[in-house]
């Protein structure tokens, strides 16, 4: 029983982090119709920004916004100077379908080697603001700690803020209109280019939080070669696909589903299926319900 509860709690916490990553992927997909495989790299870089803030200011609550702002700035920069140019240049020809994919992969490689050469290959350590020792329930210790609670609450608050922004504000309406129909958005006077950059920066900030939390939720260390990073790389994409790629609600659900499944597989089947489990889930989703859990008519074949 206690094992089941622990598995659930671990899964939900990890899932909420994947959800943030998936949100980042969805935000970029909605604004430029590109799957940003460099998103995890951007999260990595932002986490290093957060780490620097930790080193100098010694407060997680300053480091987190620093990482977010840094992540947003990096994302905006990439969209402005790189993606715009790329999408314009690779609009035609045999490679047009795969050029953005290849380009974001190249970006991932560049960011990885850059962070690695600046901060070294070794792990950096970020300590969470509260203890990661589990609450006790009678004689048992739960796998749920104040830190995990904090992560969960923060993610919920951020997702609520984001959905409020999307549903209730003019900025959100612009973001949605530009995503669904750039032409009508432009005819309505929306500066679609600027809105795209905005979508990317929101994604960058969201990925930054995911990176920071992934670090403190693990063993507190992070590096381009760590398992935490590889997991971010695949989980965001897979969770976003499970959720249907176009929906923020779907991204959250996708993240939680992924987190729970991985947690159960690790606990009850075999811990070395860590990386192959997400792949299997992805294949199952793509075959059984290719439009994702939330996705409506939009076909996968594009």
């Amino acid at each position, binding site marked *: 029983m206690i094992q089941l509860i622990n598995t659930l709690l671990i899964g939900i916490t990890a899932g909420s982090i994947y959800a943030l990553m998936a949100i980042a992927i969805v935000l970029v997909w909605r604004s430029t119709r590109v799957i940003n495989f460099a998103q995890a790299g951007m999260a990595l870089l932002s986490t290093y920004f957060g780490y620097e803030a930790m080193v100098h200011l010694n407060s997680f609550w300053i480091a987190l916004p620093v990482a977010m702002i840094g992540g947003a700035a990096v994302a905006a920069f990439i969209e402005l100077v790189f993606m715009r140019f790329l999408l314009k240049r690779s609009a035609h020809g045999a490679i047009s379908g795969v050029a953005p994919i290849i380009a974001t992969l190249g970006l991932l490689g560049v960011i990885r080697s850059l962070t690695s*050469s600046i901060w070294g290959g070794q792990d950096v350590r970020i300590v969470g603001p509260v203890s990661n020792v589990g609450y006790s329930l009678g004689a048992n210790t739960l796998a749920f700690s104040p830190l995990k609670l904090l992560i969960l609450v923060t993610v919920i608050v951020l997702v609520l803020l984001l959905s409020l922004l999307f549903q209730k504000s003019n900025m959100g309406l612009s973001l949605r209109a530009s995503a669904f129909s750039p032409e009508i958005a432009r005819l309505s006077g929306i500066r679609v280019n600027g809105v795209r950059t905005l979508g990317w920066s929101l994604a960058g900030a969201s990925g930054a939080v995911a990176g920071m939390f992934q670090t403190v939720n693990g063993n507190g260390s992070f590096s381009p070669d760590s398992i935490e990073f590889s997991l971010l790389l695949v989980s965001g994409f897979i969770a976003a696909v499970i959720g249907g790629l176009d929906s923020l609600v779907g991204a959250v659900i996708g993240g939680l589903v992924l987190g729970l499944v991985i947690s159960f597989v690790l606990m009850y089947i075999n811990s070395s299926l860590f990386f192959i489990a997400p792949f299997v889930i992805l294949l199952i989703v793509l075959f059984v319900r290719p439009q994702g859990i939330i996705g409506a008519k939009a076909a996968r074949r594009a």
Partner: protein
Amino acid sequence: MHRFQKSNKLLLFIAFGFILFLLSNRVDELRVYQGASIAVYVIAISSIILLTGYSGQVSLGHGALLAIGAYSAAVARNEFNVPVVLCFFIAVLAAAFGGVLLGVAAARLTGPYLAGATLALAIGLPSLANQFTILGGEQGLIFDVGFPPLSLGEDFTQYKWFFWISALAALISMWLLSNVLRSRFGQNWRAGRSHEVAAQLAGINTGRSKILAFTISAGVAGLSGALLSMTIGTVSPSAFPLALSFSLLTGAVLSGVTTLSGVMIGAVTLVAIPEIADVIANRIGASERITTNLPGLIVSTLLIITVLFVPHGPVEQHRSRKAKKLLQKKN
């Protein structure tokens, strides 16, 4: 006429092989080893070109397919004492089988979905090797193709032997691939790439031809995986990191994914990059951190630059420029 061209091409390949053979006697050991690596990369890159350029699909999981080939060759050699030549065939078959499975999945997916799924595979599969004791865990397996036969002379080195095997494999597979691409299958792939619906209306089973493309590509990748582990001497999960898949993709994009003829460009570049990085690092007196990361940085930067400025590869670029000039002359 057609017949003549075909045998002509075969002669060309043989002549090229002979030149390589002569060259391998003239250069030092390091170059010979690099020559072997180039041959391995030629095979691996052509498998990606086959898939991306000729069938319009992008796979980031070729590292995993290389691993399948390498592991099956090593297991066949170590556990069952299979002759070396057969080991390479087994590598091809095993990876091709993996390719069928992947192809069935891929036929239903396109673009980013396929890319993401294969990315997950590339990260996931090598770690699975830790699961089975027969695969040797983190340390991996030894893959030893034996000493060169004595009949080749006493000063015939191990590296030269590697080079011979890989170069021969590369020449044979390039010749086979270029013929496949000129066949009906190759035409079907190209048709499916540019206009899937139109190709379907013309009676081409695009699903089946995608699976076929994946199968052949995977088999070729498996061969290169076995050859790669031959040159390293061992097979282990760490020999097939995500970075390998990226490098191969870079090699393919550098070569130009729409044609096989540029494949040497990518292969030579990939082999040259670590050396170039070394020279640069020494010149600027970089710290160790930067030195170790420089090759990766160069590979990724090259990938981006190529996609931005010569998206169809230097060969195609050159061709279209020539075609344009010809047109202007005619006018």
